[in-house]
């Protein structure tokens, strides 16, 4: 297969992935402001975060200047995302499997970034020795990523099947997602071993894509791997596997949202409070006519 097949396929998948992911991200972000529901620890609290303290510990806190750190939440999330802190702390048996799985994903993502960099180096005719260094790094990242990811996906799939604590909560989608990812990783690993210079071949493929080379071809089994990976990326944004987006909101917009009302929020809140409600219980009986503000008024007001 040559011509523009691969370009349409890969860029098409990328476009769908980005559009759907951005759409879903905006949909979450545009949900109305909610009541405060923070949960300790909130890492940005300077001097207090290490034990889970908040600004509410200060006498007459509203008169004090808050001391916050912008770096601490980033570091907290970096440890959470890269090392899976919560699973390490609370579910140690699961940690090796899920750590291998997630590290595999991160390494394959690194491999993709490096392939793009290699393609740029090739287009700009950078010296072969520099390119070789990057190709070696790409190759190592690819092999480690595919092996760790494949091992993680297969072991998590087996754990889901055989662990009685997990089995009751499984769905077809949960099995399918892991099996699909395992197939992507295994096809990648197979390509790495089957193709004499995997990193160079992959980088040349990426070069063909970014330069819109219509003579672009791809050898088997890399073609199979690219097709599987593309299909996965097409599927991903429609599933709950985009929890990397959701996680931003569950942490920053809920657990760590202890922000004090400003004029903009007050305006939004006042609009929400005047919306009609239709809860039917005897003590509410809103019938779509009363608003939140009406419901909280005293009967003699």
């Amino acid at each position, binding site marked *: 297969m040559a011509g523009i097949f691969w370009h349409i396929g890969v860029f098409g998948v990328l476009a769908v992935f980005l559009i759907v992911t951005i759409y879903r991200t905006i949909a979450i972000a545009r949900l109305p402001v909610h009541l405060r529901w923070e949960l*300790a620890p909130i890492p940005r609290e300077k001097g*207090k975060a290490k034990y*889970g303290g908040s600004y509410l510990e200060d006498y007459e806190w509203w008169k004090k200047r808050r001391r916050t750190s912008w770096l601490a939440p980033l570091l907290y999330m970096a440890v*959470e995302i890269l090392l899976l802190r919560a*699973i390490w702390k609370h579910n140690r048996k699961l940690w090796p499997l*899920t750590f291998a799985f997630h590290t595999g994903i991160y390494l394959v993502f690194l491999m993709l970034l490096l392939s793009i960099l290699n393609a740029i180096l090739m287009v700009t005719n950078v010296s072969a020795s520099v390119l070789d260094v990057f190709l070696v790094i790409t190759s190592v990242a690819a092999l480690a990523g595919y092996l760790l990811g494949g091992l993680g996906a297969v072991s998590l799939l087996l754990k889901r099947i055989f662990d009685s604590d997990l089995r*009751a909560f499984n769905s077809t989608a949960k099995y399918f997602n892991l099996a699909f990812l395992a197939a992507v990783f295994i096809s990648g690993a197979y390509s790495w071993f089957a193709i004499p210079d995997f990193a160079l071949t992959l980088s040349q493929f990426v070069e063909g894509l970014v330069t819109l080379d219509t003579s672009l071809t791809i050898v088997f089994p890399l073609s199979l791997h690219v097709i599987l990976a593309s299909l996965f990326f097409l599927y991903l944004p429609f599933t709950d596997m985009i929890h990397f987006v959701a996680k931003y909101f569950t942490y920053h917009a809920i657990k760590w949202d202890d922000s004090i009302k400003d004029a903009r929020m*007050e305006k939004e809140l006042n609009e929400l409070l005047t919306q009609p409600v239709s*809860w039917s*219980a005897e003590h509410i009986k809103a019938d779509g006519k009363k608003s939140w503000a009406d419901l909280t008024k005293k009967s003699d007001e």
Partner: protein
Amino acid sequence: MNKKLKIADIAKDGDKPLTEINLKELTPLPPPYDQVGEETEFKRLTEEQQQRLVCNLDGVVSYAGLPKPRTKAEEKKYVDQFASGLKKLLSKENNWTFLQPLLLSIDYCAQCQTCNDACPIYVGSGQNEIYRPTYRSEVFRRLVNKYAKPGGKLRAKLNREDIELNWTTIARLYELSYRCNLCRRCTQSCPMGVDNALITRELRKLFSQELGWAPKELHEKGTVLQIDVGSPTGLKPSVAMDNLEFLDEEFSEALGIEIKTPWDKKGADVLLIHSAGDIISFPEGPISFSVLCNAAGINWTLSSEIPGYDGVNYGVFYDDVQLAKVATRHAQIAKKLGVKKIVMGECGHQHKAIMTVADRVLTGELDIPRESVVTFLEEIVFSGRIKFDPTKNNFPVTLHDPCNLVRNLGVVEPQRRILRYLCPQFREMTPAGIENYCCGGGGGLSVMSDVNFPDWKAHVAGRMKLKQLLDAFADHPGPEVKKYLCAPCLNCKLQFRDIFDYYKVKERSGIIFGGLGELAVNAMVDVKKPLIKWEDD
């Protein structure tokens, strides 16, 4: 009978309990509470009760008033109401208050079960399947996905997540929503930030706001009574004032210091809102703050306006409308008095309700500064205006961290700084601070006492807390060394009262419990006689 359950089992075998409490399966307690036979027996339902009451979850009934339909048509009515409530929970108009947190918790649970061992109820029960924090949430998630989303029925079949919405499901789900303390330890442990406690509260909300089902202690005799009469205790304004006046006199004599509690003082700096339950059940608490505020020369007042003398807000446990009503009343009273700030009494959920959860309902001139009693007390203790003699508190003291004050608000250290200063034998529990276990009465459970629910609270919900408490005093386990559990929260104290009575903790281990203010007053140089006593007068 701790068998593996499937999610769909909740809809099956309508009259039979899904599980039963077996005392031998519960997490063992330390000596002398480790002999199962010596524990107080769990009250089982009589045959008559089993016929009359809805009791198909775990053989425990938290609300005898739950309607038991006699006909299929009646069952369908409730099921339809539930389905309608599910849709309302997902709508911006009806549930903007928690829509974002709810949707994220429904859609993004990875089902890794990491949260399970963080739950003191699940662990305390000996890992009974029904109490997994994820079981309830997964039932709810599958119902939402099948019955409140387009194409849900087909997707449920394809995904093998089918679940039947019938009378059995909603009856069990109602009870199950009151087998959680809303302590949010599970949320803290979740790598995704999924909040099973929030899902539980949303379920309670659906039942309350759509079907009108809520425990009578929280609703009818809770928020409704508070809004109408002034307090869930039934205490009317005049009676509250009389009671405190009597207590002022009584404690003036008992402590050898003059006590006078001010009421309805316009333009005071501080409006202090205690819980009326403290005035009735634990009067040493409110009296301590009268002593401390007066000694520190603070311009303060209590309010006798309904419901300004009772800071509890059970709405935070089950109903957004009731939550907002109570919080708004409290803020309106403060505005009318023209105070500079509201200080919460020693009550965790009161703190959370008005300081954070209802913060976004109190807009404009109702947004009066609100402060924790703990930071307020820290300022008093370290201001130098009162002389303390810590040797008066020279007995082992440990601290219980109320979830709503500590885990949910991040008020962790002020109370510890006070205890380290005033109590030479202060020691921490393990785990402590924001990882502390709930007392077992959280989420409104401490005031619920229908049928055999108190037995469940004592045996299951409060088990890990009791274990943790006994472990903290393991160096002096017997009653010969007098020990003090500091629990700066009314609801926690109510739960401790029940557990202590149930297991005879004072008699067997020499532990009593009380608030933080009491320890401060007990250490005051000017207070001639001790406030904290192990023997009843």
